Structure formats: structure tokens, C-alpha cells
């Protein structure tokens, strides 16, 4: 199936801008100079990732390609692109907004679900916003368990938040709809099964991505910006 220009929604960006409350601005001024991509650390390690192309597609209204892509989920919000952009385009905001849109289309849930365990256990129950649970094998082997390092430094193994603080976090989370959202995404922890150790395998709760999250039917994403999409490139077969 060939992609056709008439399939794009050329009004998309202009009509979306006022709805997006200022989060998505100035993209029409993009020069396609590629400075954002040139300095992007994510693009340096993942060749198909290209912020410039994502901006181009949003302005042209090629919404399907952006929202169903793996690449939309490769940015880690360092804002390097924003700092070098000659037109002051705040690309990380775009990523933030379009990840929400992608989730609404059923894409990206395999990534979001990884946060659920942390969100319910650490964030709502203990009020901790930075997890001390370390599962990166490199850190475990070379630095060791973070909580042990904290104890050696004379600190409690985990940060502690006051009960009042935890109550406030819970209320804010309930009022903003965050709690309902966390409950909706269910508990799945995805580890890279080919590299994990026996110790990690024991803790592993990997489950396949559910076919639905609430009313949203989930889909696997495609590499839409590197090699053309295909089964061999699709994630999590």
C-alpha cells in the first residue's frame, strides 16, 4: 500500500494549535535545517530517529505516520534540540503532546506500562518520585544496589516522605485523573529477556501487551522513519 499525499490532513497543525493550549507552537517556522537532529543524543544512537522529520510530518498533517511510530518514543526530553533550534521550536513539548495522542490511538502502551509498578508502589504509596529500584545490569554489576550506597552514606535505604506529603500527592493524583489513569494501565513490567540475569528473571513479571486498555485497542508500533515498516522491524513480536 502506497502512502498518498491526499491522505494527509493539511489543516491539522493549524487547527490543533489553539486546542493544544500553547504546547505546540511555531512548528510552521521550521526551516528543516536539521540542527535538532544533528545534536540529538537519541538520534546519535538510534539512526531512524529524526526530530526534523517528525516536525515536517506534523506540519504536513501526516498524523498516522507520527502517531504509529516507534520513533516518537525515543526522545528522552533533554531539550538539546530546543536549545539549538534557530526558530526556537520547543520540540520536547511536541513529543509530550503526541505521545498522549498516540496512546489515545492505542500506540506506545508497552512503554507506558513499565511505569505502572513504580507509579503505584513508589509514587502513590511512598510518595517517592525517583525509584531506587535498580535493574540496569551495568549499574548493578559496576556500582551495586543504590540503597546499599545510601546506607553507607548514612542515609535511609529509600527516601522518606511525610504522611501529610503522601496524602497530598494522592489527592493531587486523584483530582487530576492520574490515579484512574495508572489503574487503567494495569501492571506489566517489561525486561529485556535476552540480557537479564537469573536474579532479575525471578523478579520479572513480563506479560504480553494487553489487546485493550480501557476502551482503547492497542497496537504494536512501526519503524516509520528508518527502514520502511515491515514485520522484521516491528517491535515485540
Amino acid at each position: 500500500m502506497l502512502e498518498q499525499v491526499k491522505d494527509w490532513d493539511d489543516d491539522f497543525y493549524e487547527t490543533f494549535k489553539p486546542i493544544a493550549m500553547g504546547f505546540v507552537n511555531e512548528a510552521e517556522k521550521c526551516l528543516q535545517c536539521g540542527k535538532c537532529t544533528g545534536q540529538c543524543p537519541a538520534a546519535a544512537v538510534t539512526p531512524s530517529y529524526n526530530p526534523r522529520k517528525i516536525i515536517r510530518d506534523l506540519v504536513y498533517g501526516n498524523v498516522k505516520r507520527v502517531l504509529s511510530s516507534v520513533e516518537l518514543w525515543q526522545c528522552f526530553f533533554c531539550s538539546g534540540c530546543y536549545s539549538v533550534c534557530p526558530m526556537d521550536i520547543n520540540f520536547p513539548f511536541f513529543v509530550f503532546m503526541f505521545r498522549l495522542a498516540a496512546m489515545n490511538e492505542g500506540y506506545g502502551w508497552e512503554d507506558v506500562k513499565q511505569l505502572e509498578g513504580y507509579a503505584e508502589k513508589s509514587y502513590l504509596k511512598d510518595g517517592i518520585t525517583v525509584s531506587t529500584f535498580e535493574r540496569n545490569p551495568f549499574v548493578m554489576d559496576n556500582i551495586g544496589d543504590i540503597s546499599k550506597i545510601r546506607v553507607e552514606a548514612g542515609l535511609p535505604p529509600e527516601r522518606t516522605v511525610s504522611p501529610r506529603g503522601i496524602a497530598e500527592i494522592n489527592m493531587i493524583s486523584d483530582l487530576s485523573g492520574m490515579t484512574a489513569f495508572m489503574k487503567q494501565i494495569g501492571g506489566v513490567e517489561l525486561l529485556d529477556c535476552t540480557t537479564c540475569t537469573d536474579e532479575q528473571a525471578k523478579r520479572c513479571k513480563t506479560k504480553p501487551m494487553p489487546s485493550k486498555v480501557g476502551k482503547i485497542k492497542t497496537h504494536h508500533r512501526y519503524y516509520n522513519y528508518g527502514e520502511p515498516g515491515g514485520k522484521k522491524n516491528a517491535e515485540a513480536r
Partner: protein
Amino acid sequence: MADNFMEEYGKETSRDVSMRTKKYFSDLFSLEMPLGRMMKMMPGMLKFMMHGKDTREDLFKFMPQMMPMMKEAITGKKEG
């Protein structure tokens, strides 16, 4: 399994997806307070109220500001 995103979406065009996306964000950023939305907030406020004396007092201090919003949710009419 579809082979690429064009197949995944089938007959749906970017225009359809864009309409859905815009509707999603208009609902998400909407300042209106329908009853359903209000009800979802209730458990959070109750939990906070039950937490202790100081949280209860805090919440009651905030009540006058919340009343118009609650009225709007119940009657469905905007004040002012």
C-alpha cells in the same frame, strides 16, 4: 499482523486520526465540569479529608472556592 502503519490503519485517513486526536485534546483540556468528572474527584478529596485533622481543616478552607464548580457539576449550568 499488519506489515506497516498504512495497513494497520486500513481505510482510515490521517484526517480521521486528526479528528480523533483533536477531540481527545479538547476533552482533556476542557474546563467544563460535568458530573462524571466531579464524581471521579470525590474519592481523592474524601481520602484527604479522612487523613487527619489538619488536612480536614485545609479542605474546608478551600470549600467556598469549590462551591461554584460543584454547583455547575450538579445543575449542569455555568454561573455568572
